[in-house]
């Protein structure tokens, strides 16, 4: 050891130096991997968050309709006793809203667009008005200012969910003339529609281009189909010769032939369309036709709206959507193009036209979406809220907390501090650890079998949900609490026992308070876990349409994640941002709980 | 006995023992040389003894330094502690023996100016006896054999007897011939010095005995009678080593 010659030391140094590069490189690689993993995890997380956040943006605000109702007695209180229950049950409040809308657009009835006008708000939206009137019947016979959520599709349109709405300011005065067929001929001074025609032609050219692209593919498919037909024909011939499997071969041939025929007709139709598009794009073939399968183009004056059916630079034929005021001189008009064709959306042109006028009159105004906090579930997205699910979650969690934490902590304390270490406690410990890994749906099945079937407890009730979730979180709480108790240094126990404390005193005066932050952290995390749990609750019927806020532990209720699950499955587009919004609420709730856990840990963590 | 876990400690203790042995060698030669100088009336030998004492003093200081260091750094316990303390005491005893030998050598220089006295032979015999005592004590220290130490302790009585008889004879000489008072007095001091050396050897024997056994040799050491009284029967030691 000591007789290492200088020479051998140098060679050792060289040996080490020769390897050191490799070692550094290995370390660098390892760090690189780590950083890559962390960065990609952060990226994935933020991507998820950004996507949810951006999806939920439309749900942050809602457009509300502000109306002044003329509360007539015959509609608000047909019974006439001013009895709140009668009012709420018999009153036609949507009728009041309809009256108010009709008052704003008196020509709607004559023009046959009344239904479109009424579509601005759904009848359910008027229910709270009934409550207001029932609470204060003295407003009957007076004016009442109300706001109500508008139709969810109109709401989405106003928020721009159906693509950008182009507006082109019109020049000069618009002249409209009623044509014999009921449509209107619109014209101005000179080629007032030239710009719009230009834009539409460009669109048509692009549409023709994309159709041509599609044609190439279709032709290829046609070629393959024809080859198949030939092959099948040969097969049929062979089958006929052998007289085996003729029917099957015939069926195949027929199918293939149909395919080919379909494709051929499609190609022919496309070719025709392309031809007309091209012709129209080049300004040939007269005015441009604009059907319901094409972007809607409105001509909007101050008080009226027309929908254009054919368009040329100087003249447009149009249908009337909203009748302008009689004698209006349309100096201030614009063309409005809505990218999504009427066929592609749930709200029709007339309702949009009414909506735009109401918005222009400030009768529709955006506001922060409070409905989602104050309302319960509804079939109408604009009326739906999370209140009942939130309350259901709170009630369920309260039950879970009250059951799981005391039992879990008591179990942990007993197992860790008092229980003798033998095969039985080992067995119990192993099983608790295993329970933590049992899929949550199994707890749901257990809850269904035991609490609903055997004990006949109410379905969909927070008490049952709470018990099931408590069963599910117990193992987690026990494991976390035991870890926290284990982390308390034995010197504290010895110190307490050394001054003559009994085991119980040592545990409850010293060990448990020291383990409390850890126990609380574990419990809160288990609660957060329970808050986000869906599967076991599905099994005990907590997946239900709950329109009323639950008031007790045995009321029917649902919880946030289940509500979210239900919303995500509903077809209307307006549910999408609301679901995203609900996800964010749930996340905020969980982050809050985790923050409380971290705060508790920081605050009460002691060093010893 | 096994080595210390800290090997340097064993080495230092061993070095201390060999230092004591070497110092003992020097003291032993100083003693024999000084007695020779008396017997042969040899001034040259006497001078080497006188010069050599400086070396012995130096060695004692060196050993004391080492012991201080050992106590401070190693904090010896048990036998190590006894050995260290014994070394300290032995060094002091040997230094005293060296001083006494020097004193004898100085007197040898003075005595040779007078006529020879017949009694120098008696002194020489006494000196040899003391030298044997010293050798025995040093051997006991080196070999860890306490038998030697016990022998030294027991034999001191003989030296005392010698001194007593010499004392009486020298008194007679001085009474007979006043001119002999000078050399006789010197010779008497030489004899007294030798007797003191014997006592130091006894002390060494006691130290070595305590070092080896951890027990004192006891207080009932057989002693030669007071000057002028007869010898007493020596008593056997009740605390014989195991």
């Amino acid at each position, binding site marked *: 050891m000591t007789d290492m010659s200088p020479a051998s030391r140098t060679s050792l140094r060289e040996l080490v130096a020769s390897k050191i590069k490799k070692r550094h490189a290995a370390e660098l690689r390892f760090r690189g991997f780590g950083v890559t993993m962390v960065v990609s995890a952060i990226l994935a997380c933020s991507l998820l968050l950004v996507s949810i956040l951006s999806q939920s943006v439309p749900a942050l605000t809602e457009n509300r309709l502000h109306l002044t109702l003329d509360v007539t007695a015959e509609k608000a209180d047909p019974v006439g006793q001013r009895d709140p229950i009668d009012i709420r049950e018999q009153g036609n409040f949507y009728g009041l809203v309809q009256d108010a809308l009709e008052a704003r657009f008196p020509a709607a009835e004559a023009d046959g667009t009344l239904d479109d006008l009424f579509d601005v708000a759904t009848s359910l939206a008027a229910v709270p008005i009934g409550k207001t009137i029932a609470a204060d019947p003295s407003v009957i016979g007076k004016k009442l200012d109300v706001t109500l959520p508008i139709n969810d599709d109109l709401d989405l349109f106003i928020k721009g969910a159906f693509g950008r709405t182009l507006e082109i300011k019109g020049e000069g005065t618009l002249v409209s003339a009623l044509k014999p067929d009921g449509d209107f001929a619109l014209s101005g001074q000179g080629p007032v529609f030239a710009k719009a025609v230009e834009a539409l032609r460009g669109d048509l050219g692009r549409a023709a281009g994309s159709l041509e692209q599609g044609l190439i593919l279709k032709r290829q498919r046609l070629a393959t189909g024809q080859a198949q037909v030939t092959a099948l024909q040969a097969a049929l011939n062979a089958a006929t010769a052998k007289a085996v499997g003729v029917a099957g071969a015939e069926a195949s041939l027929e199918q293939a032939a149909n395919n080919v025929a379909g494709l051929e007709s499609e190609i022919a139709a496309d070719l025709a369309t392309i031809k007309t598009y091209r012709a129209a794009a080049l300004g040939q073939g007269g005015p441009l036709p604009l059907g319901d399968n094409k972007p809607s183009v409105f001509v909007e004056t101050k008080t009226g709206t027309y929908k254009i059916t054919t368009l040329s630079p100087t003249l447009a034929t149009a249908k009337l959507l909203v009748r302008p005021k009689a004698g209006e001189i349309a100096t201030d008009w614009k063309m409005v193009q809505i990218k999504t064709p009427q066929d592609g959306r749930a709200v029709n042109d007339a309702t949009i036209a009414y909506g735009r006028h109401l918005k222009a009159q400030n009768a529709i105004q955006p506001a922060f979406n409070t409905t989602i906090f104050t309302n319960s579930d509804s079939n109408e997205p604009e009326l739906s809220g999370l209140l009942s699910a939130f309350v259901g979650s709170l009630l369920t969690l309260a039950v879970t907390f009250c059951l799981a934490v005391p039992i879990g902590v008591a179990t942990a304390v007993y197992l860790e501090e008092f229980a003798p270490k033998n095969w039985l406690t080992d067995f119990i410990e192993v099983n608790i650890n295993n329970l933590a890994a049992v899929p949550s749906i199994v707890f749901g099945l257990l809850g269904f079998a035991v609490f609903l079937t055997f004990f006949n407890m109410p379905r969909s009730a927070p008490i049952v949900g709470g018990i099931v979730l408590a069963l599910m979180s117990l193992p987690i709480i026990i494991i976390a609490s035991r870890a926290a108790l284990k982390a308390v240094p034995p010197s504290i126990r010895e110190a307490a026992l*050394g001054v003559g404390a009994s085991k119980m005193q040592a545990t409850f005066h010293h060990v448990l308070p020291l383990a409390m932050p850890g126990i609380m952290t574990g419990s809160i995390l288990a609660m957060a876990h329970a808050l986000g749990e869906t599967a076991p609750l599905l099994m005990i019927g907590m997946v239900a349409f709950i329109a009323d806020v639950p008031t007790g532990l045995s009321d029917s209720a649902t919880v946030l994640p289940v509500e979210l699950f239900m919303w995500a499955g509903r077809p209307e587009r307006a549910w999408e941002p609301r679901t995203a919004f609900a996800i964010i609420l749930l996340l905020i709730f969980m982050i809050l709980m985790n923050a409380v856990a971290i705060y508790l840990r920081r605050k009460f963590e002691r060093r010893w | 006995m096994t080595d210390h876990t800290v090997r340097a400690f064993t080495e230092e203790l061993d070095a201390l023992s060999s230092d004591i042995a070497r110092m003992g060698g020097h003291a032993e030669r100083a003693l024999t040389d000084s007695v020779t100088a008396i017997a042969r009336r040899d001034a040259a030998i006497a001078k080497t003894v006188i010069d050599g004492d400086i070396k012995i003093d130096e060695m004692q200081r060196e050993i004391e330094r080492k012991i201080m260091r050992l106590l401070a750094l190693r904090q010896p316990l048990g036998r190590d502690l006894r050995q260290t303390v014994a070394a300290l005491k032995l060094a002091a005893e040997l230094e005293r023996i060296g001083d006494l030998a020097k004193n004898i050598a100085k007197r040898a220089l003075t005595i040779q100016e007078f006529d020879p006295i017949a009694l120098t032979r008696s002194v020489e015999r006494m000196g040899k006896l003391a030298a044997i005592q010293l050798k025995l004590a040093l051997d006991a220290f080196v070999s860890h054999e306490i038998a030697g130490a016990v022998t030294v302790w027991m034999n001191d009585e003989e030296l005392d007897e010698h001194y007593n008889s010499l004392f009486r004879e020298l008194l007679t000489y001085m009474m007979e011939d006043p001119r002999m008072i000078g050399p006789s007095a010197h010779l008497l001091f030489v004899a007294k010095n030798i007797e003191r050396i014997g006592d130091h050897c006894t002390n060494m024997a006691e130290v070595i005995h305590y070092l080896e056994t951890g027990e004192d040799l006891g207080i009932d050491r057989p002693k030669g009678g007071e000057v002028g009284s007869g010898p007493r029967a020596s008593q056997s030691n009740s605390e014989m080593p195991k």
Partner: protein
Amino acid sequence: MTDKQNLTKVSAHGINVFYDTKQALFDVSLDIPDGSVTAFIGPSGCGKSTFLRCINRMNDTIEKCRVLGRLEVDGRDVNDRAIDPVVLRASVGMVFQKPNPFPKTIFENVAYGPRIHGISRDKTDLERIVEESLRKAGLWEEVKDRLQQPGTGLSGGQQQRLVIARAIAVNPEIILMDEPCSALDPIATAKIEELIDELRQNFCIIIVTHSMAQAARVSQRTAFFHMGRVVEVGPTEEIFTNPRDSRTQDYITGRFG
């Protein structure tokens, strides 16, 4: 003091201790006098701490630990079923290797023992006991202005003295110290040693230590443990200058192994 010193406080007869199947102590018989400091020395794993923990039955807390034999404190067998370990521990205080104050205030640390045993009559009485204990532990002057601050905020030496104050607050007869200074610096160690020397007047103190110098400094009697047996017991100066047994000799002179 002198008359107290001669009384035997703890007396062990043939103590055997087993951890599961492993025997940790073999036939240990030992008398420990009152009013003095007795030190247990010996190499690691020699059983000195195990024996110490027999005296206040701290070994009860270790599972699979069996103690056989008769161990008397004031003539009564502590392993008797009739003796409650909690009662025993109230009269046999213990100080551990690492200072282990409760993570509570200084006051609460000292007051805990009297409180659970119901020693104090009222609040002022409790305050008096706390002050007295802290004074006895030589800590009062240092902490009297910050009794409500956490005990864990004190320095290591102060913590250990706080622990001693906590132990003497219940006025025990015996104080067991398991390597009380092994985690402390020399100054703090010296303070604890001085404290031990003062406490000797009123308590029977038994100290386990790895430092032979410490055993030599603070104790009047020393017992050397080796391989689960008591090899040699005697006055401290004897053990350190002239041990009888060669194993003791080898151990104290650093020749072990």
